[in-house]
């Protein structure tokens, strides 16, 4: 059972290390995440891209990239449910612990295996294809190990404790800590007792969020959902509009003056 938030900080005293790891580091990483994104969006539109390398290598990418991305979508959805939704809510809508657990383990395993396989193929092509390797820059050299570590720690933790182990209910510990961060009522003691793999996974995830704005991961925020709704043809004016802009319905215009065309 999760403790009453009002009990903190009068609950069991937390050590300085725990405060550092589970309060200071997460908040610092979140701050870097937010400020870094604002800074990069304003400074580096030109570098804001998926940095596609399909032109140079497409055989491994053809399977690896969809596996990784679709797996990642499922994994992210699983984390949202597991971390953001309190156990009491799912119980309230009639999902008992066993059902929740079974579903989470099955769906999580499928998603995790897809993501790990895809990421493995993407890492392999990056290392083995000389063309792709030479196109790898410093941010990729940070991102790929960090992302791989986070994903592997996560799937290992699940496998060790919930697939093959006797089960660990992170919803009463890790999730409580996670929600506490965003409720501005940090609960470092909630995660301090979690198994090592879960704690390492949480820490590497924090670092991943801190690195996010400085890597190609920024392309996530450019997911082109707007394409579904915009007209096919895009017109733009080069300079100041004349008296009557010659564009009507079915097209849209945008000033090009602050853009860099090639």
């Amino acid at each position: 059972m999760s403790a009453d938030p009002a009990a903190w900080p009068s609950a069991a005293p937390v050590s300085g290390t725990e405060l550092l790891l589970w309060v200071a580091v997460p908040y610092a990483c979140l701050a870097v995440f937010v400020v870094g994104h604002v800074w990069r969006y304003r400074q580096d539109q030109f570098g804001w891209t998926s940095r596609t390398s399909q032109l140079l290598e497409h055989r491994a990418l053809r399977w690896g990239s969809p596996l990784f991305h679709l797996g990642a979508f499922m994994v992210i959805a699983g984390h949202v449910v597991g971390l953001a939704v309190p156990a009491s809510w799912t119980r309230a809508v009639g999902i008992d612990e066993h059902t929740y657990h079974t579903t989470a383990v099955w769906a999580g395993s499928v998603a995790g295996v897809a993501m790990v396989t895809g990421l493995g193929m993407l890492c392999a092509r990056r290392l083995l294809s000389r063309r792709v390797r030479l196109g790898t820059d410093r941010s990729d050299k940070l991102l790929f190990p960090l992302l791989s570590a986070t994903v592997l720690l996560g799937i290992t933790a699940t496998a060790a404790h919930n697939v093959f182990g006797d089960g660990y209910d992170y919803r009463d510990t890790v999730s409580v800590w996670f929600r506490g961060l965003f409720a501005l009522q940090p609960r470092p003691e909630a995660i301090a007792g979690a198994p090592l793999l879960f704690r390492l996974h949480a820490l590497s995830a924090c670092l991943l969020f801190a690195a996010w704005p400085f890597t190609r991961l920024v392309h996530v925020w450019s997911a082109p959902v707007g394409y579904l709704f915009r007209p096919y043809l895009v017109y733009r004016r080069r300079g100041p509009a004349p008296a009557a802009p010659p564009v009507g319905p079915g097209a849209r215009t945008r000033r090009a003056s602050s853009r860099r065309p090639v």
Partner: protein
Amino acid sequence: MPDAEAPVGRVMAQIAMVMNLDKCIGCHTCSVTCKQTWTNRTGVEYAWFNNVETKPGIGYPRRHEDQERWKGGWALDRRGRLVLRSGGRVRRLLSLFSNPDLPGIEDYYEPVTYDYDTLLSAPAGNDVPVARPRSALTGEPTAVTWGANWEDGLGGAPEHAGGDPNLGGAWAERVRFEFEQTFLFHLPRLCEHCLNPACVSACPSGALYKRVEDGIVLVDQDRCRGWRMCVTACPYKKVYVNHATGKAEKCTFCFPRIEAGQPTVCSETCVGRLRYLGLLLYDADRVGEAAATPGEQDLLEAQRGVFLDPSDPRVIAAARRSGIPEDWLEAARRSPVYDLVMRHRVALPLHPEYRTLPMVWYVPPLSPVLDAVDAAGGDQDDPDHVFAAVTRLRIPLEYLASLFTAGDTDVVGGVLMKLTALRSYMRAAALGEAGGEQEAALRAVGLTPSGAEELHRLLAVAKYADRYVVPAAHREDAAALSALENRCPVEGAGEPAGRTVSLGIPTLRRTPSEGPA
């Protein structure tokens, strides 16, 4: 021409090009000067905004005209609506992670550089040092096995040219069988700056756009997120991925020169003087309807129907309402492109069946037909012989038709006959022998003596001022233009320029010891 009663909609101006293929000698000067101007940079070593192909041939990238494979351009769905051949919006987003219809670098060619340094640094010895080719992508020694003009002058044609996607049908067998006796011509290609551009329509980020003022299609480098759908959607494969920046790049129609009233670099440096630049006014409201014309062979006329007569008072009034300046209207009236496309109707679009309404048109080459007349023992100078050859010699005619008219041989044949009659008449006129026979030949193809003089001046004399009628951009736009100039589009690859590109751009592909780029 729209009929006289139909209302004129939104008038837009397009800077368009016509190439007279009879004059192309395949010297590649246009390609080289374009390369030096725009793509001599890391990441686009393999990209040629302008390239010259030998036809028949499979082209660059290989077999790019095979839309069954590459899914370029538009198609009509079962209900007759215009859809991208590569799939609708949802399908496009689903293929973001891996685009199944994207050419790989091997479909273009592996770009190479040479070990020039060994020419100087090799120790004294008995052997002459050589500069070995190295891959520009990996820096490793490589064999040069393909290039953007590998088939130049039918090089390797017996092996490769049978793969030309335009060689379909029974007549193709004869082309392949008698290859040494057949024909070739050069086809310079660049971005078509289409009225209905598939690349713009396919871009998930909205980074590609068509300029309202002059119709030039550009990529906004700051908005491109590297989804690479434009490469698939362009049926001419004239959008390229810069593999160093991960962004799309394409022919800019040399917009900084056009804005200054100058011709594009490829036009300016064309030694055959075969390119024409000028304005076309068109009715933007009719573009979608024209592109969705059901019959592929009707697309040419449908596209001509979108263009507006710049001398028509109703068009002039509508153009003024749409904000087109007076000097642009004047330039549209003097446009050599309008003359060749609309008045004399000797220029044809490249692959109208792609439904993008391309805006680089071609005067089809008469030379292959004349060669055939000679080979058959006929007289090139006799219009009767040539007319007979045009209709009888199915090989070049059907081939040209598959390039320029979606297979309609009557249209291509008509243009070739017009060119033949023009030659015959002007030769006779120059010798003072022009008589009723030549004038009758002219009338048969819809030309008058004065029209023939005019067309001759445009096609054969081809003065600089007649070929290029490019109105400069307007001074009231000067602030916007200088803002563009300050953002030189060829900066990149980590070079310090006005502002720093802080992240994510590899600057080095080879170690310095491996030779200059």
